Structure formats: structure tokens, C-alpha cells
């Protein structure tokens, strides 16, 4: 092995003999650089940077002494990168304390003991490489976590944008403006007690401000013209609907991101003077997060082009907001928006999503590491202990399993919490003959797969990452595996001697995704499928099986408007809920039930005989017509079309059911009609079943 590949150690001592002795002790295993004073040392330290594995540093030297070297390494941010062992006979405690304060890792005293010097150097280097791994693991973990919540946020905000017909940039712009305004705000006042991580959280959550719009019917949401007062009332419902959706994330209800997102959803249309909705909150009753997102939302809406308006120039938009044309805002938030005016225009142009995520991950990693006190720890034992506690803590928090496998001794070491939970020893000898272990990792096949993946690594790129399922308490759960092969490069041919890594349980994230997708498929008022989702389901069924018998039934409430008019909207909602739950109850499990908007419902029925269909449809129709809420009798008109009659095209099936429904409606008294060809040819042919 040549000099370049061996770890480099820098010896800094003004005595040539001392350097020679140290060099003699370590040159067998390391490549040695020497400096005879602090100035020379700093030259080499800056030249080699973190390619140096260790520095042995004398305290008392001419030109620049050891403490000054430590101080300089602090200035250049190198003290966290390279471990420093001080050498001295100087046992005055003030020197020692000062050196530890400045980031020295350890001390070696003169006279040198060859064995102690070797051991201490080996330990320090090992410790630092462990720390570096740990830092990598932590930043990877932060990145993973960010990726998950980012993904969730992206899915949700895309659903909204997709339906909203807004440019995909709106969400991103709201993110950026929110961040700029909040950062300006904390410069101006500490009234709101916002930390940098609060700001990050609000910025991420701001993406979700409009998720409630999922619940708004398309025809209102995307109506090009002016909204009627009634339609506007419907739109207003999106604030509460959004907060309600997030409330479904029961497992994450205390997650700061979800809390912030709920506040933002619910309150981003409140106004400072109390004239907003839905609560009419005033002043700082409105959470600051919602106040800032509101102004960001308004500003970006003004400067962007929409289907109903042209883009308004930056300066004009700002003036409109300041003049109160878009409602009242908190004066200090307004000030912040004006302060950042210059950057606002440009930032919005250059901002890109990937840039955003990378920046965020870096920031969080830095914060985490600076909080952990990794760099200022004053001796190696504490240091190791802290690293261990921290990683164990992180592991148990996130239910991740850390492991280390050594090939030669065939020994597997696992996280404490994991070992405890599964009554396994911390150190498992011959793990792949252990039945418990094999059960958890789903058998030898998985072990072999793992082995094959490891063999694909190289000493330069030892890391691998993949998703697998492992068995926790009899339940298969998806886990992300992050793992690093341990390569031994001492011998002639490099070989893998083991692996170290961790498994992260990502099953919950999968579940959350599934839940959110389900939420997006439901009508928020009645909790049955919404129109959009139902159409897809039905279309799939129709294309899957073109020999089965299907019927599509449309159900429309008669005189629902009078229920609203006479008893109020809340009562109207109760009627709709009651109809929906009756539909669900009276239909069979394999039928698809949906609210397709307003007071219209759909049931898609699979059947074998005409009699079966007739029984099913009549039962639904009759049961709904029997509903009585207070003094209000529900009356429903029903139209049915069948694939037998009109074929398997969804639109045809739907239009025919609609024709039959229209016919039933014309009869006025809760009628049920089946569509047939003659109905179209000869106008309407009546098939009244009831009354």
C-alpha cells in the first residue's frame, strides 16, 4: 500500500527528537507529516484538510503555540473534521482545560509510552470514523424524514392544484413568500416567539393551505365567471374542510407540521379586522402562521394570471394590498412584505423545488448537529457515550433497528430496544442459524439478497439502500435499509468483512399515504365516494369485465331546495347525510355508492338476473322514500340504465340513466324508471314501479 492510501497523521512538535520518536511509533501503520511549529502546521492543515486522520499537537512551541493552532482550526471550521491529540508534559490544569475547550480530543503525556501512544491514536481514529458515520446516518435520517413529509405535502398540494387549474407554481410561491416574510418578521419583533424550526414547519405546512378545496365541487371551483353568493358560501367551506381532513391524521395529530397545517387551513381567510371567515377572528387571535400565509396567498394570486383575470404587476399588487383592497392585514406583517419588496420579485422567479428541499435538509442537519454538542464535547469517553446514547435514542424514537455484522466471527449486533423487544441477545452469534432472526428477516432468501447487494459495493462506494419487508410481531412491515459494507483494504485483495447499517420502519408512511388517498376519494360531507373517484372505479369495472351485467342508478332528491329554504342549510346537510348512509346500508357490499354533487347520488350495481336487479333497486328506492326527518319527508326520483340495454361505455350508461332520471322527475312523485331504447326513440316510455 502506498503513502497516499494510508491514513495521514500530522505531528507538530518543535523538537526534532520528539517528532522522530512519535513518527517511529506510528509510521508502521500511518503516513506521517511533520511540522516544527504552529505556522507550518496550519499550512499543512489547510492544505490537507480532512484528509488528515489525526493531529498530534505540542502545546509549547515557537511562532505559534498549540492553543493558537486549535483556535485557528476553530476559525477555519476544521476542529470538527480532524481529531487533535495534545502532547505535553505540561500538566497545569488551566492549559488542559483551555485545550479541551478549544476542541482537543485527548492528551498524551511525556514521557511517551509506545503502547499508550499507539492505543490512543487508534482509539481516537476509530472514534472519529464512528462519529462521521453517525453524522452521515443522522443527515440521511433527516433527509428521509423530510422526503416523507415532502412527499405527503406534494401529493396533497398536487391534488388541489390539479383541480384548481392553478399553475403548479402557486404552492411554491406561497412557500417562498411565507419564508421571506417570517424571516423578516423575526428581525422586527420577538412577539411571536418563532424559532427557525417553527419557520421551516410553517413554510412546509403552507403548501397545504388549500387542501380543503378537494371538497368543493368542480363546477363551482373552476367556474370561469362570477360566483353567486350561494356558490361563494360553498367555496368558503374549504377552510374548515381542510382542517377536518388533517384532523383525520389521528396518529400525527400532535406533529408540529400537522398542527401548523391545520391552523393555516382553517384561518388563512380570516382578516385582521375580524371580517374574514370562517370564525371572524380578529387581530392576533388569528395564528401568525395563517396571517403570513394569507398575505402570501393574496400577493401571489394578484401577480399571477388566472382563468378569470390577468396578472397584475408587482408594484401595483403591493399597493392594492397596502391600501386594504384585499382586506385588512396585520400592520407589522404588511411592513414585512414591503421590506422584502426588492427580493420578492426575484426570489419568486428563481425558486425551484429541488433547491428548496436541499437547502432545508442542510439547515436541519446543521441545527441538529449543533444542538447535539458533538463538536464541543471534552473527552473521548463522554463523547463515545453521547454518540451511543444519541443514536440509541434516535433509533428507539423512530423504531429503527441498527445493526452491525462481522463476517469472520459471524456475529450480529442489534439495537438495544430491538433486542429487548424480541428477547434476543444484543450480540447474536451465528445469526443466520437462529430461527428467531430468520423469522424476523423472512428467511434465508432475504439474507442472500442482502449479501448479493453488499457484494456489488466497492471500498469507495460502500453504501447501499433498498426497501424490504420484515416481520414484526407476525406482521409484515415495509422497512428501508440503509447499509454500509465494511471493506478490509489492508490485504492484497480488498474484501468485505461485514456490514453496518439500519432498518427504518416506513410502514406508517405507506399507511398514511393510503389514508390520504382514501380521504381524497371521499365526499367530505357524506363520507361516501365523491364523483371523480367513483367514475374511475366504475370505468375500471366496465373495462375489466364486458360480459357481466351492470346497472347504473341515479338518485335525485325531489324538492331538496325546499328543505334548505324551510329548515336551513344545516338541516339540508343532515338530509344528505341520511340519504347517503341509507344508500350505503341498503346497497350490497360490491355495489359502488357515491355522491355525484348537490343532491344527486349514484349506485353502480353488479347483478346476475333481472329479478335480482329489480329487488336491489326497489329496495334502495323504497327505503329512501321512507326516510322522515322531523317534518320533512324525503322524496327521491330514480333512473336506471343497464349494460344489457346500452352497452359498456361509461358515458352512454350515465347519460341513459340520466334520461331515465329526468323522466322520473317529470312524474314528480318519487318515481323509479328504467331506461330502454324505446324511451329514446319514442320519447319517454313510462315504467312506473311505485305509486
Amino acid at each position, binding site marked *: 500500500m502506498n503513502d497516499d492510501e494510508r491514513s495521514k497523521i500530522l505531528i507538530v512538535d*518543535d*523538537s*526534532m*527528537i*520528539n517528532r*522522530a*520518536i512519535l513518527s*517511529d511509533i506510528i509510521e508502521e501503520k500511518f503516513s506521517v507529516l511533520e511540522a516544527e511549529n504552529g505556522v507550518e502546521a496550519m499550512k499543512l492543515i489547510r492544505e490537507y484538510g480532512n484528509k488528515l486522520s489525526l493531529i498530534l499537537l505540542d502545546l*509549547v*512551541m*515557537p511562532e505559534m503555540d498549540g492553543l493558537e493552532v486549535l483556535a485557528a482550526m476553530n476559525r477555519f471550521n476544521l476542529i470538527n473534521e480532524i481529531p487533535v491529540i495534545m502532547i*505535553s*508534559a*505540561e500538566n497545569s490544569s488551566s492549559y488542559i482545560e483551555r485545550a479541551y475547550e478549544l476542541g482537543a480530543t485527548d492528551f498524551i503525556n*511525556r*514521557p*511517551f*509510552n*509506545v*503502547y499508550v501512544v499507539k492505543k490512543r491514536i487508534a482509539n481516537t481514529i476509530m472514534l472519529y470514523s464512528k462519529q462521521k458515520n453517525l453524522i452521515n446516518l443522522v443527515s440521511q435520517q433527516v433527509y428521509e424524514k423530510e422526503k416523507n413529509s415532502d412527499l405527503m405535502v406534494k401529493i396533497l398540494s398536487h391534488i388541489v392544484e390539479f383541480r384548481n387549474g392553478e399553475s403548479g407554481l402557486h404552492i411554491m410561491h406561497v412557500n417562498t413568500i411565507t419564508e421571506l416574510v417570517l424571516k423578516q418578521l423575526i428581525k422586527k419583533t420577538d412577539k411571536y416567539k418563532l424559532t427557525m424550526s417553527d419557520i421551516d414547519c410553517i413554510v412546509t405546512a403552507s403548501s397545504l393551505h388549500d387542501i380543503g378545496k378537494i371538497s368543493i365541487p368542480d363546477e363551482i371551483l373552476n367556474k370561469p365567471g362570477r360566483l353567486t353568493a350561494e356558490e361563494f358560501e360553498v367555496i368558503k367551506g374549504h377552510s374548515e374542510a381542510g382542517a377536518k381532513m388533517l384532523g383525520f391524521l389521528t396518529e400525527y395529530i400532535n406533529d408540529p407540521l400537522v398542527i401548523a397545517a391545520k391552523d393555516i387551513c382553517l384561518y388563512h381567510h380570516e382578516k385582521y379586522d375580524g371580517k374574514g371567515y370562517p370564525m371572524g377572528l380578529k387581530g392576533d387571535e388569528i395564528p401568525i402562521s395563517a396571517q403570513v400565509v394569507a398575505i402570501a396567498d393574496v400577493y401571489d394570486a394578484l401577480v399571477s394570471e388566472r382563468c378569470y383575470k390577468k396578472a397584475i404587476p408587482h408594484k401595483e399588487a403591493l399597493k392594492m394590498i397596502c391600501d386594504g383592497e384585499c382586506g385588512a392585514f396585520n400592520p407589522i406583517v404588511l411592513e414585512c412584505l414591503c421590506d422584502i419588496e426588492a427580493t420578492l420579485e426575484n426570489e419568486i422567479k428563481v425558486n425551484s423545488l429541488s433547491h428548496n428541499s436541499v437547502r432545508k435538509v442542510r439547515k436541519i442537519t446543521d441545527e441538529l448537529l449543533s444542538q447535539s454538542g458533538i463538536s464541543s464535547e471534552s473527552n473521548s469517553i463522554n463523547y463515545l457515550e453521547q454518540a451511543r446514547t444519541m443514536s440509541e435514542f434516535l433509533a428507539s424514537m423512530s423504531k429503527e433497528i441498527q445493526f452491525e455484522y462481522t463476517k469472520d466471527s459471524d456475529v450480529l449486533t442489534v439495537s438495544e430496544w430491538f433486542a429487548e423487544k424480541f428477547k434476543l441477545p444484543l450480540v447474536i452469534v451465528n445469526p443466520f442459524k437462529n430461527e428467531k432472526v430468520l423469522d424476523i428477516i423472512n428467511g434465508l432468501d432475504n439474507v442472500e439478497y442482502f449479501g448479493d447487494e453488499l457484494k456489488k459495493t466497492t471500498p469507495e462506494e460502500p453504501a447501499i439502500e433498498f426497501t424490504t419487508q420484515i416481520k414484526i410481531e407476525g406482521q409484515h412491515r415495509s422497512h428501508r435499509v440503509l447499509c454500509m459494507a465494511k471493506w478490509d483494504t489492508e490485504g492484497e485483495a480488498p474484501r468485505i468483512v461485514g456490514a453496518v447499517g439500519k432498518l427504518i420502519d416506513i410502514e406508517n408512511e405507506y399507511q398514511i399515504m393510503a389514508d390520504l388517498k382514501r380521504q381524497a376519494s371521499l365526499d367530505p360531507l357524506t363520507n361516501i365516494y365523491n364523483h371523480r373517484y367513483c367514475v374511475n372505479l366504475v370505468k375500471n369495472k366496465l373495462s375489466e369485465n364486458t360480459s357481466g351485467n351492470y346497472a347504473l342508478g341515479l338518485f335525485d332528491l325531489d324538492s331538496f331546495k325546499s328543505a334548505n329554504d324551510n329548515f336551513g342549510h344545516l338541516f339540508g346537510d343532515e338530509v344528505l347525510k341520511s340519504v347517503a348512509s341509507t344508500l350505503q346500508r341498503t346497497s350490497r357490499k360490491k355495489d359502488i355508492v357515491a355522491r355525484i354533487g348537490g343532491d344527486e347520488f349514484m349506485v353502480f350495481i353488479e347483478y346476475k338476473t333481472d329479478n335480482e336487479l329489480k329487488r336491489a333497486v326497489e329496495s334502495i328506492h323504497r327505503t329512501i322514500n321512507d326516510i322522515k326527518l322531523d317534518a320533512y319527508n324525503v322524496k327521491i326520483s330514480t333512473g336506471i340504465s343497464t349494460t344489457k340495454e346500452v352497452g359498456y361505455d361509461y358515458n352512454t350508461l350515465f347519460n341513459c340513466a340520466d334520461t331515465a332520471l329526468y323522466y322520473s322527475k317529470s312524474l314528480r312523485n318519487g318515481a323509479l324508471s328504467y331506461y330502454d331504447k324505446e324511451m329514446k326513440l319514442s320519447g319517454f316510455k313510462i315504467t312506473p314501479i311505485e305509486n
Partner: protein
Amino acid sequence: MTLNECIEVLSGDFDELKGRMLSEERIKKFLRMFPNDRSFSELCAAMENEDYESAFRAAHTLKGVCANLGIERLRIKASEITEALRGNVNNGADEILPDLIEEYNAAVDAINILE
């Protein structure tokens, strides 16, 4: 002179030294380098120039080298003069210097006739 005898002349503890350095060859190798070490001449020059800051550093370095190599009697003198110079003042260093020079010469003489 054998290594053992040499260390005896220097008042070092041979067993302790060998315990630390692990091999006699290593001890001999570095003892032979000692006469070329600059810290003694730097100390003398600095004392001459009344540059007590440099004198302190040189004395400190000499003390360390002696400690490493088991040159015990010189180490004691170097240690005394280091303390006398601490804080970059001459706090009786002049009086120690002649003894230190004597010990240095004795040590170099002994090392020069090492086998």
C-alpha cells in the same frame, strides 16, 4: 558503554524506559540523536540575549526530550529552569544554568561512548 550503563550514568530508570519504549534499539537510536538536538543551544543563546520567552520554550522542549529518553538528571535541571522562566521572567534561572550546562555535558559524554 552498554545502554544499561549509560542510562545508569544519566540516572534514568532503565526498566521504566524499556517498558515505555518497548525496544533497546529504539532507545539507542534516539539517544544518539540527542547531541544534535537544538533545544540546549537555543536555551543558552536565549539566556545570553536575555530573551526569556525563547528561553522558556527551549527549556520546556529540552525537559520534554530528556523525559522521553530517560536523561533524568538533566531533566531535573531543565524542569527547574523551566519553572524559573515561566511567565517569561528570569526568576533565578541564571543560578540554575551552570548546573544545567554541567549535566548536559555529562549526558552528551555518556551518550557519545554508547556502544
